[in-house]
């Protein structure tokens, strides 16, 4: 049994979020320069990623969706190997086979990035079943979007996990968009967490742009799962500040809605709060900027300098 994670301070959250944001922006820039394929960034949703992941123990496992860079980096993924994967290089976490959309990293306990919306939901109960049959009290965190909550597999996964008492923290990152469709076009209710009742499990909605609030809610949920052996549905309310998939000019997004949420940017908000409360000095903030930039410079040059996979990789790893 691993010990519970230490409570991270807000400054640590801030730096993690800055790293994620910068990673995504560089990744988008790399696409724009024609150096990597399009990608789904998690810009605007960093607080949800760092808050939940911080609440996990080392032996807890993660499944996530196409907007997974935040979860991976929060979990400690090496930005260089992650970017190499996005660029399709042999040094990436999956040798370039995954690319941006299916990254897994066994060494980090990240079982899956599913680019099939709902794929993460379909596998999560089985992963939790393995844990519980081993007698472990580890949990599985399964990240998915408000769109995935419309897929039938959402219903099947929550119901099975409930009936079989599987330790899954279902994390719905409700960012108001499902590619080019607004959430309001896809459901009559405002919250997804309210669906938990239909499965006889607990659900809760939390401000997904506040890393500390997310952390507190996730930590409590994880504790309840370990205690009760019952899954939990946590909804983090946040917003997709960039487009769905690069390139995307967001021409279809309501300007006021976007402005409202830009004003609630989880990074800017936390940074200015910490600066104005004195918890962070401008010097420390500048040092963070520098550290992030340095890590990313190194990551991108590692990735760009890495070799392509050899052509025999076309047919390796198909069968065990």
């Amino acid at each position, binding site marked *: 049994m691993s010990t519970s994670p230490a409570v991270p301070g807000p400054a640590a959250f801030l730096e993690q979020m800055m790293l994620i944001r910068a990673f995504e922006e560089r990744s988008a820039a790399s696409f724009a320069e024609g150096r*990597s*394929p*399009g990608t789904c960034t998690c810009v605007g949703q960093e607080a949800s990623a760092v808050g939940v992941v911080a609440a996990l123990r080392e032996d807890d496992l993660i499944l996530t969706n196409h907007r997974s860079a935040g979860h991976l980096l929060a979990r400690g993924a090496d930005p260089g190997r992650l970017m190499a994967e996005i660029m*399709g*290089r042999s040094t990436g976490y999956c040798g*370039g*086979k*995954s*690319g*941006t*959309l*299916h990254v897994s990293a066994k060494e980090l306990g990240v079982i899956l990035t*599913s*680019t*099939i*919306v*709902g*794929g993460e939901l379909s596998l999560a109960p089985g992963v939790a079943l393995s844990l519980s049959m081993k007698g472990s009290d580890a949990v599985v965190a399964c990240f998915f979007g408000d*769109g*995935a909550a*419309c*897929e*039938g*597999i959402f219903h099947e996964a929550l119901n099975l996990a409930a009936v079989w008492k599987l330790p899954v923290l279902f994390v719905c990152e409700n960012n108001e968009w*499902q*590619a*080019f*469709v607004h959430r309001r*076009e*896809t*459901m009559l209710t405002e919250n997804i967490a309210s669906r938990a009742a239909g499965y006889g499990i607990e659900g809760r909605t939390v401000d997904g742009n506040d890393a500390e609030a997310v952390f507190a809610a996730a930590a409590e949920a994880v504790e309840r799962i370990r205690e009760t052996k019952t899954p939990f549905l946590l909804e983090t309310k946040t917003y997709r500040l960039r487009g769905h998939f690069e390139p995307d000019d967001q021409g*279809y997004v309501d300007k006021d809605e976007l402005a409202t949420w830009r004003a609630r940017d989880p990074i800017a908000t936390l940074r200015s709060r910490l600066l104005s409360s004195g918890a962070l000095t401008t010097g420390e903030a500048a040092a963070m900027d520098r550290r992030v930039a340095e890590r990313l410079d190194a990551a991108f040059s590692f990735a760009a300098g890495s070799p*392509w*996979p050899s*052509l025999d*990789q*076309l*047919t390796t790893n*198909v069968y065990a």
Partner: protein
Amino acid sequence: MRTITPYDAIGEALAEEMRRDATVLAFGEGIATKRHDLVAEFGAARVRNTPLAEGIIAGTAAGAAATGLRPVVDLLFAPFLTFSMEEIVNSAGKLRFLSGGQFSFPMVAMAMTGAGWGVGAQHNHNVEAWFVHSPGLKVVMPSTAADFKGLMKSSIRDDNPVLFFLDVALLHTPGEVPDGDHLVPLGKAAIRRPGSDVTLVSYAKTVHGCVAAAETLAAEGISAEVVDLRSLKPWDEEAVLASVRKTGRLVVVHEASRTCGVGAEIAATVAEEAFASLRTPIVRLAGPDAPAASSWVLEQAFVPQADAIAEAARGAVARTLSLATA
């Protein structure tokens, strides 16, 4: 003639058919956002965004089709069809038969597929053969802007469920499209280049590889006929057999995995129906029996390219010659 992309050709086909027939409607995850001009012309009731749920999108199309509408649904990428197999195969494909002909299912399900965007095997998987193997369905997969338009219009008018596959590598490359009510019949192949020494049968992006190969081969004195199937179900047996009877040699080319692919059906049919005309073993050139990797170099290597096609054709021709002289 205008020069437009296949993406726009599909848009024209939808608009023209919706104008012509008030029962035609379109829905899918984002179609009303992406094709806003259709919403503007036909209203929000006939062009709809949907929740993210491929099963019910396809099922709703089938239910609507059974009761008087002609839905076109956009299921985005072919691997997402795995979430609508039940509705497409068990309902749309079988219920006309099981009802003894009481209902019909005039609907079109679109899905993009193939290499080109580096998005990997959960977006890029050529599964057209599944639907060719399933009863009651039709399947098309065009290679030119004109065919995207003409086949889409015919698919919408067809009284059966049609799977319409869009090769992503072709979708944004402009091509010529005839003016007016341009229809291409389902089930008719196109001879993209006539020839007499070897028949290259293909569809979608690899048709262009075949044409390029045929040009290379022509320079070497080998005359290759390129047959573009366009429709995979029904497929134009007559055109393929006629070509093979003329050339005596067959190379079938597609991006989809080789095993149990459409090429297997073509090869098997020729081995049954035109056996006596064959002067050389049939050759299939297809994607490997593996998922498609995202990495650009691997993605491209997955697809049979012009060089490999030319080499296969050369091999076929050479082999006969050596057999003949042996």
